[in-house]
Each structure stands twice: as C-alpha cells, then as structure tokens.
C-alpha cells in the first residue's frame, strides 16, 4: 500500500465510509492510502464502542412519579379554559400578572360597592333623573314611529281592513296558515336523516 498524492479523507468521507455510502473514487483512495485506512478503522472502532453502550433504565416507579406531577386534561372540560389555566400557572411571571389583574378587579369592585353604600342619595337622584330622561326619550321615539306609520301609503288600506271584522279575520287566518306552512317546511328541511350513513358506524 502506498501513500497516494492528492487530498486525503475528511470527516465527511469518514462519515460516508461509516454509513457505507462512500463514493467509488474515495473507496479506491482508501485501498491505496494506509493513513486514511488506519484513521477510518480507528473511527469505526470508536463508533462501534459508543454504539454498543447499554441502554440504562430509570427506577421502576419512574412513570408513576412523573404522572404524579402531570396535569392530565379533563376530557369534559372546555379546552380553552384548560389552556388558559395552564398558561396562567406556567411561570411565576404569568402567575404574578394574573394575581395583579385579580386584585385590581376585586379592588375596583369593592371600591364601587363602598362608594355606592356611602352615596345612596346621590345614586337615587341620578337614577330618578335617568328614568325621567329615558321615559321622555322612549315617548318621543314612539310618537315619531306612529307619525311615520300614519304617513305610509298602505296605512289607509290597513285601517279599512280593521273596520271590517270578517275581512280582518280572513286575512289573519291566511297569514297564520302561511306562517305554519313555513315552519313545517323548515322543520322538514332541517331534520336529521333517518337512513344510516356509510361511515357513521365506524
């Protein structure tokens, strides 16, 4: 065996040789180069020794100890709530933020209750004023709606219908029939199929 000129093995060629994917020209080089062959064999010896290391096992109760600290999600709980809860308790920082927001909310609620109890007269007068204003606004709205309806071209026809009870009853009956027909059709359309679907039983 001689020492050929040209480049020698690099770690990439060693890896290829170990994996059995060395290119033909490098294989020919290996047949001629004692240095590269020795290096490759030494690498294989190391890799063989490392690969042969035994797989070690943890203690027999390892899985139980892990499971004691794992929060298995409740299949019946809402996933988003679980995810939120896990995120909240994930780090100290997120826990601190959650606690701060809770304290802020509870504090503002307590402050609101305390202020309400201390200022009942003010609240009562404010409530009365709001009721009056609300009532006036509602009355104005109703009047506006009524005058708008009266101005409509179909209003006279509707009024004359109200003056003839038989025609009114007939129109009401036809409207009720149309409504019932619509509901029945909609129920038929939305009903679940009673026939078995091919993949449903899997």
């Amino acid at each position, binding site marked *: 065996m001689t020492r050929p000129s040209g480049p020698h093995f690099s770690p990439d060629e060693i890896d290829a040789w170990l994996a059995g994917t060395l290119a033909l020209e490098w294989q020919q080089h290996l047949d001629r180069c004692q240095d590269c062959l020795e290096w490759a064999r030494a690498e294989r*010896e190391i890799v063989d020794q*490392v690969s042969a290391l035994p797989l070690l096992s943890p203690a027999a109760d390892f899985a139980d100890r892990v499971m004691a600290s794992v929060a298995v*999600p409740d299949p019946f709980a809402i996933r988003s709530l679980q995810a939120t809860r896990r995120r909240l308790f994930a780090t100290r920082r997120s826990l601190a933020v959650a606690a701060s927001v809770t304290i802020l909310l509870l504090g503002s609620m307590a402050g609101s209750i305390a202020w309400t109890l201390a200022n009942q007269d003010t609240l009562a007068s404010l409530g009365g004023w709001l009721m009056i204003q609300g009532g006036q606004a509602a009355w104005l709205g109703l009047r506006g709606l009524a005058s708008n309806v009266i101005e409509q071209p179909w209003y006279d026809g509707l009024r004359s219908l109200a003056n003839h009870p038989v025609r009114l009853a007939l129109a009401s009956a036809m409207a009720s029939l149309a409504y019932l027909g619509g509901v029945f059709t909609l129920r038929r359309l939305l009903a679940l199929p009673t026939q078995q679907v091919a993949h449903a039983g899997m």
Partner: protein
Amino acid sequence: MTSGRTEWASLSDQEVVLLARSGQEAAYRELIRRYERPVFALLFRMVRDRELAEDLAQETFVKALNAIDSYRPEFKFSSWIFKIGNNAAIDHLRRRELDTLSLDGSPHAETPEAMQATALQIGARQESPLDTVEAKELGGAIEAAIGALRPEYRSCILLRHVEGRPYEEIAEMLNLPLGTVKTYIHRARNELRQSLAHLKE
C-alpha cells in the same frame, strides 16, 4: 394487556400525543414508556449521577407532558423530548460549573469555617456503595472517556451514536448549525480515540 400494548405500538408518536391531549392518561404513560430509557440514559451519561439523572429525567417529562398542547406535530416528538432533556442537563452542568469554580469554597461563605466546609476537596471523596454501583454501570473505559468530554461534545456524540439521530435532527435539537454539530462529533471521536489510546498504553 398485551393487546392493549399492541394497539399502542401501532400508533405513531403524533397519534399518541393527540390522545394525550384529549385527556387519556394511558397515552401519557405510553409516551413515558417509549422515551424513559433513552432520555434517562442520555441524562445519566451527561451528569454521571443516577439520582440526579432520574430527577432531571422526571423534570424533563413533567415539563414536556404539562406543555403537550404546545408540541408541534410537524416535528418529531423524540427531538422535542431530547431537546428538553438535553437543555436540563446542560443547565445543570453549567450551574454546577459555577458552584465549583472556586477551590477555596463558596463565594457566599462568610466565615473561615464556612469557606472550609464548602471548599472543593480534591481526591478526598469517599466512594459510597451507590457510587460503586454507578461506577459499575458507567464503568467501562469508553464511558469514562465520554464522561471526560465537554458537555456539548457529549450530547452530540451520544445523540449521534447511541441514539442514532441524524446530524440535521441533532442540529435542530441543540440549536446549533449543522457544521458545528459535525465538528463537535468529529472532535469528540478524536478525543475518545486519544483517551482510549492513552488507557491502552
């Protein structure tokens, strides 16, 4: 039981993860069963202390399984769990390195007695029966040589040649460029060869 095991065996990691996410405790146990040995073996060889390796492996699984919703199925579950385990080991080794940096005792010691008590005792350590068992478990020359490698080299060589992971996956797991992983493994093999040659002499 056997048929149950067979049913689990036919499922991919991703499918088992989906069942775990739906709240099946058996799926969690299946993931532990699949990876407890390789993860523990990696950690044991990284920290060379059985009790500590079990603690780190437990920490790894608890962290991974409690965050199972954040696992992305387009990646291998094995990569994910090895990545968490390796990070736990590297973090521990870095902390230990900081703690044992001073031969004169802990930097937090305030009295001479405390300095004395926390000083690193080179060569004075008595081997306990547990240590003897561990020494037998990791007793081979190759194990000793791996234990003497830099932690980064150790992770790479163990993942490559014990776990049989491809270079690309190791690079992804360890957040390292592919070329760096190849270099680490090459250097690790070199160092192992030198160590073992030295032992042979």
